[in-house]
């Protein structure tokens, strides 16, 4: 079984998939979710599987190990690994391959490590069972790999339990674990999706290092084209279980053949056409010296001040734990601050929600990240949009009906078609449009958009951004745009606010903040956003090593 001493020549065929078809079970019926996929993978080669949700990329990744999740099954095709068709082999044969010659890196390391065992014991487990290594050898290898992947305290970190280690470190420990047997093939299933951008880069660097050093073949699954461009030699674009396009990374990015690929590439190039002029009008919202905390002691917002002007979009940017969503909760009155004040159109707002009057509530609306949970599944579109109309504006009967239809037209949904639907009968993007219509129904002055595009597929997200921009141009509403995604900031904002650990580190007009000189955290954040350039990661790592750009900052939490 040992593959350790096998010569690793680049070019040798490792995986050959032909006509793979798979079905998934929903509501007691089987539906085809992978519709005939061919894939060749050679030693030392990385193929990126990219597509939106429901494209079947994870399912294909697992199938290359001869594995199907409960509720899924392989119905046709062949999966040849090293010349042997896994479909024809026994479960025991496949079990011997898994963890030995093929290994898997899951999206959520936190959930995929067993909470009851130490990291280093989980590292060597498969290798010892497959008879590749002894426990002592495995422990030694683990420490070497931990060091190579730049985990802090590589000699001791393995003796910790999973919950004692942070997310980014855990993800790297999982990459290390996948390498325990020096496999011929690794499946990376969205290994950075759950991480912040500044942490993502560390994991990406680890993945790239491992793959090139050990000349391993890999399948890298992601929905982010810029991420996959950094590690993959070739890219396969998937949609609804079909292959749309397959090609060399560089040529695909330079010259995509299919429209769908072109659309995916175009997403990040959208930019607002005209930016709002800076004006000296009184701000519509003025937040002064806000300090807030949950419970006792833990301060989540520390002396935060900012302004939003009429018709402007202010982006609030930060990673998880930066306090950006808390700021929204404070402004809406859900979390009264311990200090500071909020002025709305020159008038001090009561800090608690229950002390605000209907008109104050009406003028400040909110749109959420997850349209699935932001709409009551038991209310029809008519009721969802109609409620603010009757609640705030006292509309009834025909007047209300007419207005609901107007609003639906405004968000580009056909009223006749959609007015009687339940949220369950809408797509993600349509749901988010309904949420926008609900906010607009109140005729607000300011809308807080909390990560409104991050749960959506990229193409849909872009449509939503365009819609929001059009509405702003027509209605002169202001937006406070909370996001972790720099591309979104670049696309839509006039001004931006950068937050770190509850404090504002930098704020001002977008172009000023985006151009150096900047606060070192802003620089770190901006430089960590993957670009659609296959050389970006290598360049950045080289520049960081040379000290040309910041690679870490003192106050950043240990990633």
């Amino acid at each position, binding site marked *: 079984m040992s593959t350790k001493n096998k010569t690793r020549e680049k070019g040798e065929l490792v995986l050959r998939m032909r006509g793979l078809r798979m079905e998934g079970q929903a509501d007691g019926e089987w539906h085809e979710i992978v519709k005939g996929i061919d894939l060749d993978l050679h030693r030392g080669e990385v193929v990126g599987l990219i597509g939106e949700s429901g494209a079947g990329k994870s399912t294909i990744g697992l199938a290359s190990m001869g594995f199907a999740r409960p509720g899924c099954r392989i119905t046709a095709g062949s999966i040849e690994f090293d010349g042997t068709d896994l479909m024809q082999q026994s479960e025991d044969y496949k079990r011997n391959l898994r963890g030995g010659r093929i*290994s898997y890196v899951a999206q959520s390391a936190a959930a995929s490590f*067993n909470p009851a*065992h130490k990291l280093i014991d989980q590292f060597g487990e498969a290798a010892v069972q497959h008879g590749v290594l002894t426990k002592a050898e495995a422990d030694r290898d683990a420490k070497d790999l931990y060091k190579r992947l730049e985990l802090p305290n590589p000699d001791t970190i393995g003796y910790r339990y999973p*919950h004692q280690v942070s997310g980014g470190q855990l993800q790297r420990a999982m990459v290390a674990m996948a390498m325990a047997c020096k496999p011929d093939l690794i499946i990376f299933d969205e290994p950075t999706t759950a991480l912040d951008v500044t942490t993502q880069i560390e994991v990406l660097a680890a993945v790239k290092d491992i793959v090139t050093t050990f000349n391993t073949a890999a399948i890298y699954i992601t929905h982010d084209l810029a991420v996959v461009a950094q590690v993959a030699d070739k890219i396969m674009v998937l949609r609804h279980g079909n292959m749309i396009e397959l090609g060399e990374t560089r040529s695909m990015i330079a010259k995509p053949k299919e429209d769908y690929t072109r659309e995916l590439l175009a997403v990040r190039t959208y930019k607002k056409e005209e930016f709002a002029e800076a004006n000296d009008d009184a701000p519509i919202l003025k937040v002064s010296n806000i300090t807030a905390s949950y419970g006792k002691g833990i301060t989540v917002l520390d002396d935060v001040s900012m302004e939003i002007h009429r018709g402007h979009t202010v982006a609030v940017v930060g990673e998880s734990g930066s306090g950006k969503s808390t700021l929204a909760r404070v402004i809406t009155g859900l979390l009264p601050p311990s200090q500071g004040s909020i002025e709305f159109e020159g008038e001090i707002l009561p800090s608690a929600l229950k002390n605000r009057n209907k008109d104050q509530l009406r003028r400040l609306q909110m749109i959420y990240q997850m349209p699935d949970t932001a709409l009551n599944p038991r209310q029809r579109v008519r009721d969802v949009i109609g409620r603010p109309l009757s609640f705030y504006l006292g509309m009834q009967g025909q007047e209300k009906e007419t207005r609901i239809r107007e609003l639906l037209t405004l968000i580009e949904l056909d009223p006749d078609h959609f007015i009687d639907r339940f949220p369950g009968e809408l797509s993600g993007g349509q749901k988010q449009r309904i949420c926008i219509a609900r906010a607009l129904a109140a005729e607000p002055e300011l809308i807080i958009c909390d990560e409104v595009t991050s749960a959506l597929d990229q193409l849909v997200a872009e449509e939503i951004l365009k819609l929001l921009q059009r509405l702003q141009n027509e209605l002169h509403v202001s937006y406070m745009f909370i996001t972790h995604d720099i591309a979104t900031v670049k696309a839509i904002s006039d001004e931006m606010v950068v937050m770190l650990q509850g404090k504002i580190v930098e704020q001002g007009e977008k172009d000023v903040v985006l151009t150096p000189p900047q606060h070192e955290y802003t620089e770190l954040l901006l430089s960590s956003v993957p670009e659609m350039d296959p050389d970006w990661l290598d360049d950045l790592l080289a520049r960081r090593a040379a000290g040309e750009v910041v690679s870490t900052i003192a106050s950043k939490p240990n990633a």
Partner: protein
Amino acid sequence: MNAILTMIAQRLALGVLTLFIVSLIIFFSVSLMPGDYAEAILGQAALPDTVRAFREQLGLDQPAYVRYFQWLGGVFTGDLGTSFSSERAVTELIGARFGNTMFLAAYAALIAVPLALVLGVLAALYRNSFYDRTVNVVTLTTISSPEFFLAYVLIMFFSVGLWNGSEMIMGGFFPPIANVSDDVGFWERVYRTTLPAVTMTLVIVAHMMRMTRASIINLLASPYIEMANLKGLTKSRIVFKHALPNALAPIINVIAVNMAYLIVGVVLIEVVFVYPGLGGLLVDSVSKRDIPVVQGSCLVFAAVYILLNLTADVLSIISNPRLLHPR
């Protein structure tokens, strides 16, 4: 490790507090009794003098909180007052029967726990198989049946027997009445209490195995089990090394919850089999409105119940790796 000790100390303190509040409820709920306590006991027709004398005898002329602390003091010194109906000390009455109840409960638990765990784990591992579905229907049926129904059915089959004319087809294996006293030897006692123990077992096993099945299925769906599969580990290693350490907490919880249920369920079974346990005593005393005995037995049942739930709590803290190895 310190955090865990603090948590356990907190649970213990909470348990003591709960017990204290429960004692308050048990004591003071009696004063909610409509009309006069003494009158209620003696009946409306009692002479005023008799009532007054009885009241003094009970110490009812003193304020309630004084009587509560006297009663509570009595609880700690093993004096729960005197029974109205038999004039015997409550502690003595309870003491004699408490051992019997514990014996029956332990007997049932000894059969039920291993049986339920094995059946439950098997049902989880072979989910949706014929075995699983059969077990599901059978356990649903037992859970749905009143305990006394199961008891009488067992008596019918194993004791009274099925008769065909004058010929007994089966039956006569066990006595229909679990009559034990102090001079009965251990094995004879086991023999006589088999039917009640089996009845208890039927009810408990059904509950316990359904809960075990559910928690194991829940566990097997977790991502780290999928990861273990994708690491190519053997099935036995996945079950014993990856599932079991994490299943401990839920399984302990299942056992403790059912033990608590068992302690209470025993009341009915004791009545059916005329078994001289605490449950029988409680039911008798309730019909006679023998308040000191009712209070005493309720306190004992509540204490055992709280203690079992507390044990479950503490054990599941100890068996949780996240709490065991804090950051």
